[in-house]
């Protein structure tokens, strides 16, 4: 068996990035905590945004973390899947909208 690149227990070690640069890690985690505190958006809304972004950046740690956080904050399966379709729509749309570039170029070099 080959060793997996991502190990879910590594998520618990996230805080250890401070061992090699405490000042920046402290700033990051302080900022991170503030970002996810309830504000104009609720914790549930922020968790769903994070869940959608986690899938866009395809971060396995973030997917685990924000699936759990979404459930904890009271989001349901329908809301979570809708959030993912937003990811898919933007990712798919980002490819397709470049079709305009393709068409522009094709027209530019075609008779």
């Amino acid at each position, binding site marked *: 068996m080959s060793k997996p690149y991502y190990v879910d227990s590594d998520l618990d070690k996230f805080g250890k990035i401070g061992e090699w640069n405490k000042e920046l890690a402290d700033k990051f985690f302080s900022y991170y905590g503030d970002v996810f505190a309830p504000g104009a958006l609720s*914790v549930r809304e922020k968790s769903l945004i994070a869940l959608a972004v986690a899938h866009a950046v395809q971060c396995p740690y973030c997917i685990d973390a924000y699936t759990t956080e979404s459930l904890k904050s009271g989001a349901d*399966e329908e809301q979570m899947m809708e959030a993912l379709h937003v990811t898919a729509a933007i990712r798919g749309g980002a490819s397709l909208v470049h079709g305009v570039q393709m068409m522009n170029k094709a027209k530019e070099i075609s008779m």
Partner: protein
Amino acid sequence: MTSITKEKKTSLKYRAHELSSNAVQMKILSDNESIGIKAFDRALKEDSLFPLKPTGIDIFQVNVGKMCNQVCKHCHVDAGPDRKEIMTRETMQACLDVLKTSQISTVDLTGGAPEMNPNFRWFVEELSALGKHVIVRCNLTIILAHKKYNDLPEFFKKHKVEVVSSLPYFAARRTDAQRGEGVFEKSIEALKMLNAVGYGTGGDLKLNLVYNPSGAFLPGDQNSLEQEFKTKLKDGWNLTFDQLFAITNLPVSRFLEYLVASENYADYMVELANAYNPTAAAEVMCRNTISVGWDGYLYDCDFNQMLELKVAANSTHISDFKEKELLNRTIVVNQHCYGCTAGAGSSCGGTVV
């Protein structure tokens, strides 16, 4: 997928599951080292809370039996239709005799489905006559389970009983996944019946709901969840209620079965231990509660009752209730207690901080 996805319609005891043995449960819970968490008593010691002592006895919680019309996957009582252990009228009388001369103001009735005990109504009437504030942990579906229960909302109203009911989610999927097929729909019908007689409509008739997570995760912020439940139940079914109590699932009995079978046990315990909050630990409900089992034995809480961890006192039975001695007892703890001290804490009345 593991077998947890299949609906279990019988208790652990009926299935002769190894976790129906308290010794097996205690063996799992007592082994904190293999999952890398601090022993709960050590966590208390570090905050000068050990030994954990009572602050009083304000709540007298009575488990009138393990019989229930539901077989919820997370049930820490291992209740169900196949459980026959119920409190006798004599034991109820012994409770009344204690309460008659005691300052204890609140009596919290739980089960199983407490209403299935044939002496339930008599007991409530007697408690009401003593002037006690009575709470009933009603699973909602019992109201519709048989015509003899259909008038429970009127009965509760007559005795100004506070109704506390589990509704793990405001949609069928997650409610039914935890509590059984069709439970959500029946719960909604029962809530309509309670609202119709005035429960949960802003007056004296209190209807509080219990949210507990449908899986191996902790509950989120109680206030946010309450707002979400209020909006969804009002918009969807024109239902109202008073408060939402967010309760953490403790690794006992069928929830422990789920954790072990789904291989979530270690991670869940680590999450509970990491979320240990000393402020919540100081406010745990066992410090002002006494729990009476169906057979009259005394416990620090309903969870210790299910693990058969009797009070550490000479008087361990309701027939020999010595309030003064109980007030000086040391509360029995183990790793399951992390469930009550995680985050904002957890009690039968929701968060504690």
